[in-house]
Structures are given as structure tokens and as C-alpha cells.
């Protein structure tokens, strides 16, 4: 993992000289500003920070960060970032991706990065639509979605990105909102501190092709009723006065939402992100309905497991430590391994 050092940086240091070219009003601006203003607190020098992205609106992100960065190929950012991270454990490697990039064309790389627990911080901007290609439905669009490519409604069932990540046994899984800078930064902080893959879904508004997709989670009139703010070690209650809560009904597999008044306070689930069995966090990920009611945000899961990077690097380092002689001598020894013969 990239180690912090005494370095004084400000938000301005992380702004590149490139003109930001997202549509006016795009949720990506808020995320960019939040990330740029959050980076200094990590105390990781800019040159040791790398943003790798795929293709899509969100994937323009690296151009706007004054760090090292690569805008790569559709869906492949986790694979490219894996090679970088494993070969350069001194770097802090971030992947910026979208719902199409990460879950459709790049689904395979995402789940494999997560199951390996590569030391990547993966930010998935989920706007539930294809923006850059001008408005086709995405793998997180709701069934029945009417778009340019589905004039009578999509027949595809959407992925639940957190359920998918948890199915891959990701060691850190969280969700946050583009418009809530404080919450967004608290989640980024936790992700940055995590050793291994950190998967963060950021609900992001595409005001051109899917405007208001998450409005109920943002509108002050509705958000308290719709959002569940997870806090480690706290009973899960929500609503303006905490009138709703999450319980684990006996005999059931999952979690359910009840009126707090109707349950024994001892039955309210106390959030524990460190539960090693992913089933708990998975159950949390299943709470929201199609209308986004009961949407938890915050850190669902944060468990310790050695990162792929550490394991791979330690194999190489162990082998190197055992070797003696210069690399040239070792190579000469390797070439003459096995049955050799000499002609005079």
C-alpha cells in the first residue's frame, strides 16, 4: 500500500490543466470536486497516485486529476490497474468506472479484481444509463426502461452492483451519493484506508439522459424516508425520527424493514461491517425496492484479507532473498540447468 508521507497539498494541486468537458449539471463535477478536495488528506504525493479508467463519461476522470493517469479501454481498467498495482505496490491506484464499463463490457475483470482483492480503489459512477453513446439502457437500468435502444422497454433485469461485488467476496463494499460531499468523502476515506480492493458505488445523476434517477434519495422532502445511513456499531434505524429500522426476522434469509415502534429494540440489527460472512452485507444490499425505498448508503462491508498484491510480491521477494550472486551469474546458472554436455 502507498504509505503517507509529510507532504502539504491542497485541492488545487490535484486539478489538472485540462478543461473539464462533462455536460453542464452532470453529477461527475461534484464527484471530481469531492475527490480533488479529499486527496490532500491522504498525504500521498501526487506522483504516487494513479487514476486508471475505462471508457464512458466517468472514464474521462483521470484527465482532470493532476496525478498520473490512464484513460484505457472499455471495461478493462481493473485488469490494467491490476498489473500496475501488483508490479508497483508503492502506488495508490484508483479505478474510475461506470455502470456500463464495469458491469457490462468489463464485468469479468471487475469480479476477478474483487475476488483476488487487488489493492485498487474502484469508484463506480452509477447513473443507470449509457451517456457517452447517447442514451441506451445500461446493466443497472430498471426493467422496462424506455430508451433509444429499447423503445418499448428493456427486457433486461438489472444488476445490483453491490450484490454482485459481495458475491465476488469483495473485502470492502460501500455506496454513496454524488451530491452528498460529506458522505462521499467519508466513504472515500474509508476506502483509501482499506488494504485490498475497495468497491464504492456512487449514485450519479445524468441530467441529460436519465435525469432525476436518484432524486428521491436527494430531495429533502423524501430522502430521510428513502435513505438508510449505515454507521458501524450503530443500530440501523432511519426516517426523520428513526421511526423505521432493520431487523433480521427469525427463519428468514434476509433483512427486513419494520416500524421501530413495533419491534423490541434488542431486535434491531446493529451494523457491523466487519462480519466475515458476506451474506450479511448481501442482505443489506437487497433492501432497496425498485422505487429506491430503503436504500442503504455507507460502508456495507470492510473485512481484512491479505491483498493479492502482497501475496504475489511476497512470493517474488522470498525467491529473490534466497538467490545468491549477481543476476548475470544466476542467469548463467539457469542457462546451464539440466543435462548439458561440453564439446572441446
Amino acid at each position, binding site marked *: 500500500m502507498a504509505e503517507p508521507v509529510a507532504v502539504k497539498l491542497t485541492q488545487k494541486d490535484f486539478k489538472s490543466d485540462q478543461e473539464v468537458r462533462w455536460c453542464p449539471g452532470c453529477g461527475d463535477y461534484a464527484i471530481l470536486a469531492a475527490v480533488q478536495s479529499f486527496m490532500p488528506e491522504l498525504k500521498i504525493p501526487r506522483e504516487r497516485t494513479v487514476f486508471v479508467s475505462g471508457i464512458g463519461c466517468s472514464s474521462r476522470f483521470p*484527465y482532470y486529476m493532476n496525478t498520473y493517469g*490512464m484513460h484505457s479501454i472499455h471495461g478493462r481498467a481493473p485488469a490494467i490497474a491490476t498489473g500496475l498495482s501488483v508490479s508497483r505496490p508503492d502506488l495508490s491506484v484508483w479505478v474510475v468506472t461506470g455502470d456500463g464499463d464495469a458491469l457490462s463490457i468489463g464485468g469479468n475483470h471487475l469480479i476477478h479484481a474483487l475476488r483476488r482483492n487487488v489493492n485498487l480503489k474502484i469508484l463506480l459512477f452509477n447513473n443507470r444509463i449509457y451517456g457517452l453513446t447517447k442514451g441506451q439502457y445500461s446493466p443497472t437500468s430498471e426493467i422496462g426502461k424506455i430508451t433509444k435502444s429499447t423503445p418499448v422497454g428493456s427486457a433486461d433485469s438489472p444488476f445490483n452492483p453491490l450484490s454482485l461485488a459481495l458475491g465476488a467476496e469483495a473485502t470492502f463494499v460501500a455506496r454513496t451519493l454524488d451530491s452528498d460531499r460529506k458522505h462521499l468523502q467519508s466513504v472515500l476515506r474509508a476506502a483509501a484506508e482499506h488494504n485490498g480492493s475497495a468497491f464504492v458505488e456512487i449514485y450519479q445523476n445524468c441530467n441529460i439522459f436519465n435525469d432525476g434517477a436518484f432524486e428521491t434519495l436527494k430531495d429533502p422532502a423524501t430522502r430521510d424516508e428513502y435513505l438508510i445511513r449505515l454507521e458501524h456499531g450503530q443500530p440501523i434505524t432511519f426516517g426523520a425520527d428513526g421511526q423505521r429500522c432493520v431487523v433480521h426476522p427469525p427463519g428468514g434469509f434476509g433483512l427486513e424493514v419494520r416500524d421501530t415502534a413495533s419491534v423490541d429494540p434488542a431486535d434491531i440489527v446493529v451494523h457491523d461491517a466487519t462480519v466475515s460472512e458476506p451474506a450479511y452485507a448481501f442482505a443489506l444490499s437487497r433492501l432497496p425496492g425498485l422505487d429506491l425505498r430503503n436504500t442503504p448508503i455507507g460502508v456495507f462491508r470492510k473485512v481484512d484479507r491479505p491483498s493479492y498484491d502482497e501475496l504475489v510480491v511476497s512470493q517474488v521477494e522470498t525467491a529473490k532473498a534466497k538467490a545468491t550472486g549477481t543476476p548475470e551469474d544466476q542467469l548463467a546458472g539457469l542457462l546451464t540447468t539440466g543435462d548439458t554436455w561440453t564439446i572441446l
Partner: protein
Amino acid sequence: MAKQVRQLDRVVIRFAGDSGDGMQLTGDRFTSETAQLGNDISTLPNFPAEIRAPAGTLPGVSSFQVHFADTDILTPGDAPNVLVAMNPAALKANVGDLPRGADIIVNTDEFTKRNLTKVGYAANPLEDGSLDGYSLHPVALTAMTIGALADHDVSKKDAERAKNMFALGLLSWMYSRPYDSTLRFLERKFAARPELVAANIAAFKAGWNFGETTEDFGVRYEVKPAKMSPGTYRNITGNQALSLGLVAAGVRSGLPVFLGAYPITPASDILHELSKHKRFGVTTMQAEDEIAAIGAALGASYGGSLGITTTSGPGVALKGETISLAVALELPLVIIDVQRAGPSTGLPTKTEQADLNMALFGRHGEAPVAVVAPRSPSDCFFAALEAARIALTYRTPVILLSDNYVANGSEPWLLPEVDSLPDLRVEFATEPNGEDGKTFLPYLRDPVTMARPWAIPGTPGLEHRIGGLEKADKTGDISYDPANHDFMVRTRAARIEGIPVPDIEVEDPDGDARTLVLGWGSTYGPIGAACRALRQRGLPIAQAHLRHLSPMPANLGEVLKGYDRVVIPEMNLGQLAHVIRARFLVDAIPYNQVSGLPFTAAKLESMLEEVVKNG
């Protein structure tokens, strides 16, 4: 009875049996013994794609051919002088390749009615006179092996499995091979089970003694050592040599090596081999798919490693988009394609050279890369170093086109001195390169190599962003400017075309040939053998062989125009011929074979004779 000893200058032996009979191992051991003796050698394994096809069937036949001689040889031989057939299927699958008079050693225990029926023999060929034209040696290999191991503490199954060692012992006796290396090998292989060491050695010695005592084998042969350059040798396959070349590239560049690979025949052995050499700073990653494998390698290159991915044709097809990205990013990347017969899954264990078009042209957009091809198993070592040299010096993807024939074939390799290998050290960018002394221009090129600076993450002050979008010259900023795109496309093409590669050399000992044979890659051996044979018969012919397919040697056009006729034999439908015709307006004559098998020297010889004589 003292046996007669007869001197031979060359022998081709083919060991054939069921895929579970251990024929590859037997051939490998015989080869090693032969190498110890100092003969020149060339080998050709031929095995089915199925791991264990149904026992005793034709599709399950696996064979290993070894050609050894007292002179320098170039191919594993066209027709075996000796066939060892462990069952009726092995006999049936191979007998057609034998010249009349060849020795056939058969395991009679497997010639049961059931086994004969399985492969469509109506009568037993050992008895019906159909093999009268050959020198047939019926040997009860299984029964004698089991008999020899009666006192050993091994199961009947293990005893029976040692029959390949009995056969090896017999052949080792017949050709007077030194067998110390085989005994040492068995001790290593079965180190955990001493009873198997003893049993296998006993089976080997029983085979040897059987040769010495039986009257059926009245003659013993010797093939004297070949005159070879002084030095230390080992026998090596192409995949092994390629792996060692990649390790050597890491050592000589001083860079960590990162291999991203997805298992695929016939390239997987490179992944297996490199995974053993972590002490050289080699990291191997078995990725989730071909695309991830090259992606991870490119990511590692971006971070300052020598990024490599190994695969076969189907994998290269999947990697195309990432190769294009590497072209745009101008980062070093080595892509190894061990070609196999296509299209699609094709014949995964058979050879072909039909990925040349894909290597040269198989990407979207104008995406030129460098392409190199090894000519023989041991040459894979040097081709790997050359691919790494070009990739590192010119910051470009390089495709190395090996194929199943060189990858699995073997030959003696005169081991090079490490100090004699090319110096591949590179310099990373460490300082701003803009005129103001503060700006970093990631696409400002070196005036000589046209390479852009390799500024790796972690370098303070050089933070920059790269990507697949078209970049402005010098600054690397996103640019949609038409003139800039035109300039960048031409620049990327020019920088590949401008890579200096050695001139092509022509082999024409008497200098009076009017016909030139041009080849590339693994056809070097059969073409060379055919040319030698023609010259021995007084027919002049010139041979030139391409190692660099992109860019091509600067003198190639001149060389081609110096001959009346240019013939291009390839294991595809004329892909190089097409390029040569288009590029040099030379009316090259393609000669093509796509059978999954390498050319035989004899076939090329007769084709070339026709061209030389009749034009």
C-alpha cells in the same frame, strides 16, 4: 554371440503409442542420451489435443520423432528409419510414413483381436504379410517388462507402465546410447517413490539386455558425434528457450518482468516455466482471460516493468484492442503468439503460420507494431531478446510469432555467454523536457529512436495523463485536430518503419543461383535442408530467411530483385507472399501447406527442383 556394429551417418526414430504410454517422455530421454553423445539432433513431438483419448484408438496416438546425425542437421527428418509402435493404433497411424525396409518394433502384447478391431484391422498385420516390406521386430514388451519386475515391490499396473522404459532400454542398446542421464532422470522423477526408481531402472536394463541377448536384433548401430562448435550445450525446446530469453531480457534490462497469461495450447509451457523464475524478479499472473492478461501486462509496462503476454492465435484475436491501446500509448509490450492451426479452435496441437496477417494488420485503425519470428527452437531465446530490445528501445508493442513446431521441437543449443547478450538497459524520464524547463511533454520524441519518454508513476514533477484518445503531438493532450491526427498516424507508422533491423543475409555458397527461396519463422529447417540437398546435386539455389517481418530489412527489396524467381513456402495460404508482392512488386511464387504438419525437406526439394529446372 558378438553382435555386428554398423556405422550410420543419420537415423530417424519415431516412438508412437497411446497418449498414456509415455511416448513423449521416452522420446525426450532418448534425445537427451543422444545429445550427451554429441550427435546433432532435431525432434518433433506430435500429440493429440485430447489429454487421454480413448485407449487404443487412432485419435489417441501420440508420437515423438527424433533425428540424430554425425553432421549438422536442420529438421526432425521426413521419414522414420525406425518405428516403435506400442499398439495397433500406433502402427496404423504411422506405418504410412515409413520407407520400405524400415525397422518396426511392435509391442505384440497389445495386438489382441479387440485392439485390432478397434482400429479397423481385419487381420493381424503382424501375421498377414502386409508388413513384409519392412524389417519387423515383434517384441512382447508388456509381458517382458512385467516379468522383469516380478521381484519388485510394485503393482502390476506400475510394472506395466514401465514398458516405455523397456522400449527405451532396447533402443538405447540398438543405437549405443550412453544412459547415465536417464538413470539420473529416473532418480529425480520418482524421488518420492524409491520402488518406482528401482522398477523403471530395472525395466530399462531389461530392455537393454534383451537387445544384447536376443537373436532378433543382430546388428547394433553407431552414429558418431557431429562436428559441432566448441562449448557447452543443452538440448532445448522452443518454449523453454523463449522463456529463458524473457528471463534474460529482464536481467539484461535490469527491469522487473511481468507476464500476464491465460492458459492456451501450445503457449502454456511458457507461463509454467516463467512461474519458476521469481528469483529473477519475474512476476507471473494467470489472468481471468486473454484480455486481462494483456491488460495487466500493459499496466505493468506503464509502471516500468517489461510487460509480456503469451498466447496463441485465438488469444491474439482477443488482445487486439489492447495492442491498439499500446500502440497509442507508445509503451513497451511483448506479445508472444505460439501459432497453432486455425481458424477458431482449429487444431490446437498442430502447427501453422497463419497468424502473420493478424500480427501485421489485425487491429482497428492504423496500428503498426514490430513483428519478429524465431527460425528454430534455440533461436527462440534470441528472438525473445530481440523482441524485448525493440519493445524497450522503441516503446512499442512487439509481436513474436513462434509456432507449435519450434515451440515443442528441440535441438542442441550452444549456450551463450551472458556478457555477450545485448544490453537492454533503458532510462526512465526523470526531468521535465519542455523548453521552459518546467513542463513535461509526454509525446516529445527522441530524435533518433522517435520513442517518447517513459515516465513512470512515482516520478515527481512528471505527472501526466495518457489514453486511447488521439493525442496532440508533444503535449499528449486530447486532440481532435484533423491535421494533428494525420500527423500522429503517419508518425506512428514511420517510427515502426524506422526501427533499424539487420540486413537479410542470403545463403548461396557458389553465388550462381537464379532462384531465391524466401521463408520466415519455423520453416527455416526444412527449407535449409531442401536447399542443401539441391546444392549437393549440383542445382544452385539461394536461401534467405526473415526474422523481422515488421519492419522488414532495408535491403530486402534489392535482394529480391537480384533473382529471376522468388519462391515463398509457408504454412498458410500465402500471407508473406502477398505482402512481398504488394510491397516490392515482385512476382513471388507462393508454395503452401496447411496440414498442421511442418514441411518435409523432401517435398520442398522436389518442388524447388521443378522451379530451378523449369523456371
